[in-house]
């Protein structure tokens, strides 16, 4: 579903943010991407989402290179940043209609999905209010609804649980599992190692732009906790 091959990103100031990264996410995978602040997680995720250009390597989404056919790739993915800045001058409903228009959803499709997801995140009553009046958590929920309404094959999330209330966080986890059960895949970064350990079947740890380890959760954690593995690998490497 997602193949990152020899990915290297160098910023205009010459700083190498990520060096020769290789990651493979298969259909059904719930893949956690872990690292310290500034390790290169968000840079990688932004390149996968088509926001940032990169210097070397390839990023393939469902077999299609994001560089060669970005529109086709973007039709298959959904991305949510760690701090979703949305259009404050629109209402939640106007924003949802906008995203539905981008993905060319019919009136019936959008009605069904918006009602379903907005109800799930308890946002229906607030959809006619301006986004500028939303709290961080409400914006996060709206961004999540937008991510799910076009039924993406690959979901890319940057710190998806920040700002969410416990119920919404539970709902997101369920939706993530459902998507993977249907053959989709999820690639997300998080600092909450307990969540990653319980939720994910695969993991990659990155430090200073270099991949430290990648593989299945069982292989990497074995008989210890992910926290111990992470601390040991990142301090040793």
């Amino acid at each position: 579903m997602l193949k990152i091959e020899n990915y290297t990103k160098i910023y205009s100031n010459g700083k190498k943010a990520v060096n020769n990264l290789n990651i493979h996410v298969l259909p059904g995978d719930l893949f956690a991407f872990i690292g310290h602040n500034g390790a290169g997680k968000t840079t990688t995720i932004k390149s996968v989402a088509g926001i940032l250009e990169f210097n070397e390597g390839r990023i393939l989404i469902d077999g299609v290179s994001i560089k060669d056919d970005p529109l086709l790739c973007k039709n298959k993915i959904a991305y949510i940043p760690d701090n979703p800045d949305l259009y404050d001058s629109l209402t939640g409903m106007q924003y949802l209609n906008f995203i539905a228009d981008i993905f060319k959803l019919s009136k019936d499709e959008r009605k069904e999905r918006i009602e379903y997801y907005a109800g799930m995140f308890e946002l229906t009553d607030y959809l006619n209010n301006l986004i500028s009046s939303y709290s961080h958590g409400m914006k996060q929920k709206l961004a999540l609804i937008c991510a799910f309404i076009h039924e993406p094959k690959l979901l890319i999330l940057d710190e998806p649980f920040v700002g969410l209330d416990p119920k919404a966080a539970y709902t997101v986890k369920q939706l993530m599992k459902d998507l993977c059960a249907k053959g989709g895949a999820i690639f997300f970064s998080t600092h909450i190692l307990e969540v990653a350990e319980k939720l994910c079947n695969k993991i990659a740890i990155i430090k200073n732009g270099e991949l430290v380890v990648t593989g299945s959760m069982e292989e990497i954690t074995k008989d210890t906790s992910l926290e111990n593995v992470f601390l040991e690998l990142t301090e040793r490497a």
Partner: protein
Amino acid sequence: MRNICLLIKTYFLIFLGNLTGKKETKKILGGGLIVTLISLLMVGTFTITAITTTNQFLELSKVLPGAEEMAMFSNLTIGLLLVILFTIMRSIYPAKTSDEEMLLSLPVTKFQIIISKGFYNYLFDVASFGMVLLPSFIVYYVLIPTATFMVLVWGIIFVLLSALISNALSYFIGLIFINLASKFKNISIIQSVLTLICLAGYLILQYSIPGYLSDFEGDPILYINNIGIMKVLLSWILHNNLINFLVILALCIIPYLLTIIIRINLFGKTFNVYQNHDKSLKYHSSSVWYALFKKELKFYFGNSTYFINTIIGCFFVIGISVAYRIVGKEQVLAFVNVLPEELRLSPDILIVILQSMLLTTTVTTSVAISLEGKNLWILKVHPIRERDVFISKILVNITLSVVACLISGIMFMDFNKPFTGVAYFIIPALGSINSSIIGLLINLVFPKLEFDSVEQVVKRSISVPLSMAGAFIASLIPAVIYFCFGRNTWNLGIYTIVSIGVYLIIFFILTLILRTKGVKLYRKL
């Protein structure tokens, strides 16, 4: 007292930080230089205006004793109009503070916070109002032989008092707008329309003063007495009427003290934001480009700063065309005849050039990319073609200018020659399409995606003056060709054909650049 001084010092440090951005000597010098230049420009403009007017009335006073007081009347009215405009504009957009919670958590009283904030703001008002109002008093004192030193003293006191009343009025009107914001979803549109009305009112009044004074005959005191507040003011300033001074003193101080009490009571309280109680959800389906266009239009009309700073060209084109319809073609002809022989041109063509020139100040695209700011990820992460993004942004500009061209075209049209209406519509409209592409290209070269407020982008981006300059040059190319080759032979018909040809060539070149270089620049953002 220590806390108040500490808070005032901090506010000044914040001001300096905002001015300079980074702690680099060059930036600090640059910021300081801009402030100094703007101040000098303001003082210079008001001083020259005051000298010109005062000399005129001084001359008149030789045959009409007392006419010199009209100089103070005229200069003070012009200055006060600007102060009133500033007061109203400021109150339409009440300042939002983000430091309330932080300040409340500190061991300082609300009284100390309000007094320090009030004093800090007051100093800025005194400085700006001084630049606008004081030149009138100084010039009057220097040029009018009968003026006493008290004119200067009263002038300084007047500036100090006007800052108080302006501050108080702004606060009271601002409270109304904060209240309205909780009741109306589209408060920004209301604010934008009100600002336009204020600007129009200011311009009409500003240009009415010379007209009012040009009819000047008879007793000057009668003219001053026609406007009540000016009668009270001038009687105090020029004739040392202490009762009038006390009246004005009370009128300025009492409302200000009232605002202090209200501010202390309201400090830290949150105001309601608009909540739509209609729970029914409306599902609309549109094409991608139309969805983007709707989004752009909502942002444009929902953002007063963006709207006001870019609509000005359309506003003037329509305003001048309406004035033209009222005053008639003769006035334009009279203006043309004033020009030197080598610059005289057909009034029909002059109108088109004027329209095209004015519309170059409406280039919404010059900041359209920058204003995406932190929302740019939305456009980049979704399957949206760069072409659709560009078209939606250009279309906002075109929509505005087409409306302005249509209205002004009808207003300027010679109904005996319907073709003139077509020319007055099509030439500036085509020029405006090119201007919008130029603006977009320049913004792609000079984007400013990191900002705290829209003002920073709209008023302080290098892309804005560059876009206007680029648009101005491109729009005037047909006029330059006309001056070089056809000034004595071309009529409006030939000028129209040449303009369309030139604008189409420019359009194809610009489109080509946008589709190649423009797309590359966008992808790199």
